[in-house]
């Protein structure tokens, strides 16, 4: 593994960690459901970003497909959870009206 690749992995992985922290912070301090969901999605994006980063093996080398598959699965799971949570929120709103 070249230094360049290592650098990219660390750089992108590190920004993934920052995204996770941002998301976590937002999840903890914001009450509205939609904000919490954005926060969770942001955290997810951060984790996925880390995985994509460690899959990266250089601009002209095939990346590691395993983390890619994990991320793809994760994206679908995330959208499922988001949709379900929003339906919960909608139901609560309807009950309020």
């Amino acid at each position: 593994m070249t230094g360049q690749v290592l650098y990219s992995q660390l750089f992108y992985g590190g920004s993934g960690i920052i995204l996770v922290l941002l998301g976590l912070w937002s999840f903890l301090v914001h009450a509205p459901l939609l904000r919490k969901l954005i926060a969770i999605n942001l955290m997810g994006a951060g984790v996925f970003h880390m995985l994509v980063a460690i899959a990266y093996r250089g601009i002209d080398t095939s990346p590691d497909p395993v983390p890619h598959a994990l991320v793809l699965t994760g994206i679908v799971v995330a959208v499922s959870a988001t949709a379900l949570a929003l339906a919960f929120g909608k139901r609560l709103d309807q009950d309020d009206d």
Partner: protein
Amino acid sequence: MMIDALPLSVTLPLIGAFAVTVSPGHARGPGLLAALLTAASALSVTAAVWSDGVLRADLGGWGVPLGIALEADGLSAAFLAMANVVALAISVYAGGYFKQESARHFWPLWLLLWSALNGLFLATDLFNLYVTLELLGLSAAALGALTGTREAVAANLRYLLVGLLGSMSYLLGVALVYAAYGVLDIGLVAEAIEPGPIAWTAMALMIGGLILKAALFPMHFWLPPAHANAPAPVSAALSALVVKAAFYLALRLWLDVFAPVLNEAAANLLGTLGAAAVVWGSWRALRAERLKLLAAYSTVAQMGYLFIAFPLLVATPPGLARDNLLAAVVLLALTHGLAKAGLFLAAGMVQKTAGHDRIDDLGGAAQALPAATFAIGLAGVALIGLPPSGTFLAKWMMLEQAMILGLWWWLVVMMIGTLLAAAYIFRVLSRAFNREPTPYRFVNDARTELPALLLGLIATFGLGIAAQPLWVLLEQGAFG
């Protein structure tokens, strides 16, 4: 041609879920059939582990590290058997409990949840476990909201969000593990792992996420409202199985993945939180005004006992004593699963008959339902930890080991919990004695009362008098 019960236990409920999704009007028949077949295949897994040892299936034929494997050792087989017995009882009960409209929503989600449970107990791949956790969390939250009351929806939304946060923490740990060791299979990770910041952080993230899902104090706040407001069969599944699955996974990771990096500080932290859960959960259960809320707080307390096992496990050197301790913890978890499910199912009956579940006004309903009241009593015996329940044996062994280690304060905590549990259980049972003479028929509605009663009986007599088979089962790959 071959039939492999491992993937069957996970896919049969999926196919069942398909069947009940496409024919929502007639969900009960196919649903019960799927339940029966699923339980049969899962129990056959346990039987096979019992007689032949550890079972493993390489899905897709690739083998690790590339493919995903399912594996049943003694530990998974034990939890699998308990979960499927409970799930089958819940299914039978639900067949009588849910009416047309809610039945069509219940069955597919329930089978998906069951699939997730079996998948979780059999999984060996860290990421696959993440998927099963999410399937479990989503279907559990949706089921919990089936009563449709505002409290139920709000509580289960919170449960969903907390679960998502927990999964996210777990997934972050998985990412870290993959980054560091390049594999996802539990066995391979265990070979590669070595003490150091990576392993500690990964452990903190994964187990931290799981204790959020297992509702360990002080992360228990979401549990009581979610479990208390769900429909009774769902409460039973949530309290008996879903939180137990998170505990199972924490235990599994603790034993199999992070064994080389364990330290006393982490174990003591978990144990202390467990102790706080025991006292706080029991206290709140005692103060609860509603039967189902009581049962839910009792779950918080009971999960606490399980986590007290961690410091004891760490302090006990490998050998016979540690094996016995591990088996005792498993026995405690299994008994609680059976008993708590029985309690919720019986509570559901009482609630249906009385039209409410306020403990102070239960009198007539409890006396008119001897079988349900007996189920509550039997489950209560197991929850308190009185003989002849499995809990009694488990607590005896845990406490004896604690005393041998000189860690007497765990004994104090557990005895406080036991006395509080006796207080809250008998607070309910005392309502069953009423001056009004009621027509005494032991069983009034077999389909709903018998499952509860049977679960109580297994918890109290089955596991209390014949716990020995558990040791035989755990010999298969879980001791060591």
